[in-house]
């Protein structure tokens, strides 16, 4: 399924962001890449051009800087007036213990993983609403996490940020339905990326960025509401979500 859509990738130098961009480029789509590090962006852009993207633009931005979001959106619009997909791949995996010890740490994690995305999504939603409803195949695709499905002592700050974002997206999906723009929530499990490099890996629960990106690309093309990736997380989380709180609070998860 080739496409000639233009996609914006927030967090374009993340492992899954790169993998998704590759698929998009190989299908013939153009890209606007957003990330903090210019040299990494340039390297990524050269790769994507070679893989078949007709047009790749780079924008350097620190997405924790909310004041610059309107400007950033304007720059994106200047690059293309026909954007089909907005992908959100950026995030951090905070150290839960450090978050417990310091509110500053928690605030940082909530800012990057929830508030920053919420700010950008607000601006994008307002823009999308003013666009013609007939613009085909528009979609906003945001990576949250299975960690946002239920709070656990081992990572509830990250979980709260991603869970908050998941709820935000539910509302946004509802709101943008009449504008014909899909909102896709992506809930990955464990992905083998630099973000998780401190964790001992192994076992069948770990997925590659390429596998996850493939699932996301397909979900975006179909305008799905919500996906787990890999999809075996759906039954796992169904069980986890349904354990009564009286029992759950006693578990060491």
């Amino acid at each position, binding site marked *: 399924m080739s496409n000639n859509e233009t996609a914006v990738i927030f967090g374009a130098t993340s492992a899954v962001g790169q993998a998704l961009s590759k698929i998009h480029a190989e299908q013939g789509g153009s890209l606007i890449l957003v990330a903090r590090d210019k040299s990494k962006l340039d390297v990524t852009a*050269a790769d994507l051009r*070679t893989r078949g993207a007709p047009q790749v633009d780079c924008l350097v931005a620190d997405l924790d800087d909310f004041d610059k979001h309107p400007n950033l959106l304007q720059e994106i619009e200047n690059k293309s007036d026909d954007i089909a997909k907005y992908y959100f791949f950026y995030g951090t995996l905070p150290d839960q213990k450090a978050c417990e010890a310091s509110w500053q740490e928690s605030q940082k994690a909530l800012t990057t993983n929830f508030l920053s995305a919420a700010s950008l999504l607000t601006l994008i939603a307002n823009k999308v609403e003013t666009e013609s409803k007939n613009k085909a195949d528009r979609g906003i695709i945001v990576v949250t996490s299975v960690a946002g499905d239920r709070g656990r002592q081992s990572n509830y700050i990250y979980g709260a940020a991603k869970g908050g974002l998941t709820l935000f997206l539910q509302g946004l999906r509802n709101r943008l339905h009449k504008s014909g723009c899909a909102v896709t929530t992506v809930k990955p499990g464990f992905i083998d990326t630099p973000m998780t490099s401190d964790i001992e890996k192994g076992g069948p629960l770990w997925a590659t960025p390429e596998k996850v990106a493939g699932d996301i690309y397909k979900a975006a093309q179909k305008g799905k509401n919500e996906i787990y990736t890999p999809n075996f997380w759906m039954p796992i989380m169904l069980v986890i979500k349904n354990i009564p709180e009286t029992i759950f609070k006693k578990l060491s998860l």
Partner: protein
Amino acid sequence: MKKYRSWAFIPAIKQKAVRPQWLGFELPTNADATKDQTSSLLPYGNGRSYGDSCLNVKGTVVDSRSLNRFIHFDENTGVLKCEAGVTFADILAVIVPKNWFLPVTPGTKFVTVGGAIANDVHGKNHHADGTFGKHVLSFELMRSNGDKLLCSAEKNADYYAATIGGLGLTGFITWAEIQLIKIESPYIKVETTAFHGLDEFYVLSESANKHHRYSVAWIDCASSGKNFARGLFMAGDHVDHTPQGKPTKAVQAEPKLSIPFNFPKLALNRYSIKAFNALYFNKNSVMSSGTSYQHYDSYFYPLDGLGDWNRIYGKQGFYQYQFVVPFSEKATMEKILNKIVESGLGSFLAVLKEFGDVDSPGLLSFPRPGICLALDFANRGEITLKLAKELDALVIKAGGAVYPAKDVRMSSQAFKAYFPKVEEFKEFIDPKFTSDFWKRVNKES
């Protein structure tokens, strides 16, 4: 994640690894590997080396697979520059639609560019085009002291020659620039001819190699008597236009079938292999003889269509034995084939190929003029090892060589006999780099 293993599962080990994400990374060096082996390094590509040349059990491997970006592709000249972890599969996906092709490719496209250089891989066109290293215009070699050497036939030519075929021991290749070849279609015109015996093979090969870019033969290593050394010779060439009615898209971008688990020990035995060989020969000698058109994917990479095919040998793994002996040693080749048939240990994956006289650029390159045979042996422990040792003696005597990329057992004496330039090579080894293969073939015994 998948453990770091070699393709043939021997040895079965646990391997420590680091995985840099961007060029400009630093090698994790904090001690002298010659004194402290736990800090020694070895580049790791896509794990397609069969033996222990891709492992460094006491130290760390530097996994190149996240360094998989294209840097530049000039569609007019066919010069491609990319990071070392890019695989041949990645490259083909980009270049074939633009009518370019790899100058040399081994029988799997799931190798990295770095690995292809480190093993100076060869393909079905060795007689015409030499090894892969021959087509590497330049590369950057990162040494553990932080030096980055730009290597080509002109610049740092000594490191260039040591690194091509250098088994990853001279440093970490960060990127490479290769010269592609022009094609007009993704299809290969294949001419298949059945042969009986080595004499017929030699005649076929000699005449075919004058006219065809590619040639390879499948040979039956299980049958004796009148079926001894029967086989199918396949000559191929790129065609100048896609034959009518053929799809231009790759037929197997991803393996459709995968071996989901290790086969039980008994699945492959003397009788099942014999039966397979007979079936394969009889089917193909009748049905495929003559001319056919094959997509490059099924022509060059028949086994890539079967994901994790190495599992058919079971979890005990297997040995591959690949060697070359000079043309003049036809009697030795005959003797070796006889030995393999007698042993009943040979498998159905046996490939015979003539190497031409195009010089290999690497000090430790394996290909040299002669006839090359590659085949798998199921791991039957001592019996298999004993056979390989006997074959070694014959190959050494004939002035041939065994391929390190496939090896997990050759002795240090054998290695020195096969690779006379090894002393010269040693000067270029990075002091912090080593591999299990290297330690083994340098052990005094």
